[in-house]
């Protein structure tokens, strides 16, 4: 592991969520250890068998029968998650060349590299459902599949790197920790690995903001400005409010999703309030207050019309992000072709030699 060469702040975030990831990992091992039924009995229908495995909190594996809609939902969700990791490299990659110390440069480079790794595990998880990475990349490039809208916002200052780590990676973890218990085995296992790394990212982001918030007045202002700009887009990462969410109910029944958008958003808000206090930064919501009855914070909803506009392609950076990805893909074509041609030549040489 590169770049985690600093002691995390005593009161830093991530501990509780990391604990949940570990619990999910233990549950996964237990589920694997419980004698799994070897397959449907002769007279049992496949659908009933599938439902039984899901109900028993066992994992569906690639070889198992699954409803076509379950497969499609998973492909779409895992692919969009993979695309998000790959596109998400851009906003933070934007600061690698200007990172203000060599230590920060190393940590950031390693972080962006981790995101590429997350993209790879996720594409590999999607491939177990019978679709190829190339097909999925094509769906990203031609705009038929989306990535998380959060990456359509620009990183304008160094503090944005901190805010992304703290808030965006933080929201991603809150979203993803329940996915560590997803009914589809390869996705659950990929999520465990991803969540562990995301929790490092969140700590690193928090650490950046902590340093800035306790630095010069200019640094503190930079940190506050970044939190002001990233707070509501981060809340919007949990998706539309429950009433308007189209995929939720079925995904819940299949145990792909385990909590509603609004439940996860609330969890995230509750987690951030105390951390913001320790940072000495203000969350830009004058109506944020503890609700004794609900044992949660009341907060202002993000602007869902804005979310919709960004999803539709009209955020500040949608065009830039896609153009960047298409250009990298197009400019790399001759290299990929060369690698394929070379491999084919090597194969035929080996065959001749054999």
């Amino acid at each position: 592991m590169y770049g985690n060469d600093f002691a995390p702040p005593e009161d830093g975030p991530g501990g509780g969520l990391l604990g949940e990831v570990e619990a999910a990992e233990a549950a996964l091992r237990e589920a694997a250890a419980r004698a799994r039924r070897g397959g449907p009995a002769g007279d049992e229908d496949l659908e009933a068998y599938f439902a039984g495995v899901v109900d028993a909190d066992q994992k569906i594996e690639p070889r198992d029968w699954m409803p076509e809609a379950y497969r499609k939902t998973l492909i779409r969700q895992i692919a969009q998650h993979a695309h998000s990791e790959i596109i998400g490299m851009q906003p933070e990659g934007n600061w690698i060349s200007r990172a203000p110390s060599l230590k920060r440069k190393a940590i950031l480079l390693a972080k962006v590299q981790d995101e590429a790794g997350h993209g790879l595990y996720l594409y590999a998880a999607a491939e177990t459902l019978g679709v190829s990475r190339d097909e999925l990349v094509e769906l990203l490039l031609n705009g038929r599949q989306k990535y998380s809208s959060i990456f359509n916002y620009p990183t304008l200052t160094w503090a944005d790197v901190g805010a992304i780590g703290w808030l965006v990676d933080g929201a991603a973890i809150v979203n993803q920790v329940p996915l560590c218990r997803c009914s589809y085995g390869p996705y659950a296992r990929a999520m465990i690995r991803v969540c562990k790394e995301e929790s490092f990212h969140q700590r690193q982001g928090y650490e950046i903001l902590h340093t800035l918030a306790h630095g010069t007045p200019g640094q503190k202002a930079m940190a506050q400005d970044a939190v002001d700009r990233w707070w509501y887009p981060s809340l919007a990462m949990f998706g539309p409010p429950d009433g308007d969410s189209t995929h939720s109910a079925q995904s819940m029944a299949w145990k792909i999703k385990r909590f509603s958008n609004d439940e996860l958003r609330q969890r995230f808000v509750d987690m951030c309030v105390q951390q913001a206090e320790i940072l000495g930064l203000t969350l830009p919501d004058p109506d944020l207050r503890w609700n004794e009855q609900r044992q949660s914070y009341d907060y202002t909803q993000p602007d869902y019309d804005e979310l919709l506009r960004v999803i539709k392609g009209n955020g500040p950076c949608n065009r830039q992000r896609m153009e960047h990805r298409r250009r990298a893909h197009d400019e790399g074509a001759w290299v990929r072709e060369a690698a394929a041609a070379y491999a084919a030549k090597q194969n035929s040489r080996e065959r001749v030699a054999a």
Partner: protein
Amino acid sequence: MSTLDFTLALGDDALIAAQRLGEWTSRAPEMEEDIALANIALDQLGAARLLLTYAGELEGAGRDEDALAYLRDDREFRNCLLVELPNGDFGVTMAKLFFLAAYQLPLYTALAGCADERLAAIGAKARKESAYHLDHAALWVRRLGDGTEESHRRMQDAVDQVWPYTHELFTPAPTAPVDPATLRADFDAQVRDVLDQATLTRPADGWTPGGGRDGLHTEHLSYLLAEMQVLHRAHPGARW
């Protein structure tokens, strides 16, 4: 060449190489390559930090790795010109990396056995990394050289373009902890083998640009530093 100048030169080579490789992040021809280039950039950056920290100690003026990286101007940098050249296409980047690694591997190997304990420890760590960089770059030189017609043409162009900058690496420095002139035979053998396998031609020697070790750089370095240093310099004395 004093131990300080030598350490600074190696540290600057690694730092500027890392900066250029970092520019590839999210732009590589395939996702696996994005990860590989970031790995190599991280290795170079790691070596740069160790070398610059030690250079600061040798200098004894209280400068740490960041003071040396962020607060010197281009005329004070001691890196070779090869590493500051723009990335170009992927072929040019691989030509640069291949020549750099074919130099750094015997250099760090010799350093691992030198009398200066700090430098020996850095050499011992870095040579393992250089061996991987060399493997990686050599594989791409072969793939591109012996791939398609287009890749062959591009790779030969890249080698032709970068080759003149390799001579500077071996400028004799008999008093340095490792005299770079002693590394030339190793380098030449490595280059000959890989270019042969890649069906590429070693360019003829002629023009031999240099000056980096004396702080006389190409026009590119000042732009690279402007970008690298801008934020650090905008907040004098701040901690990050």
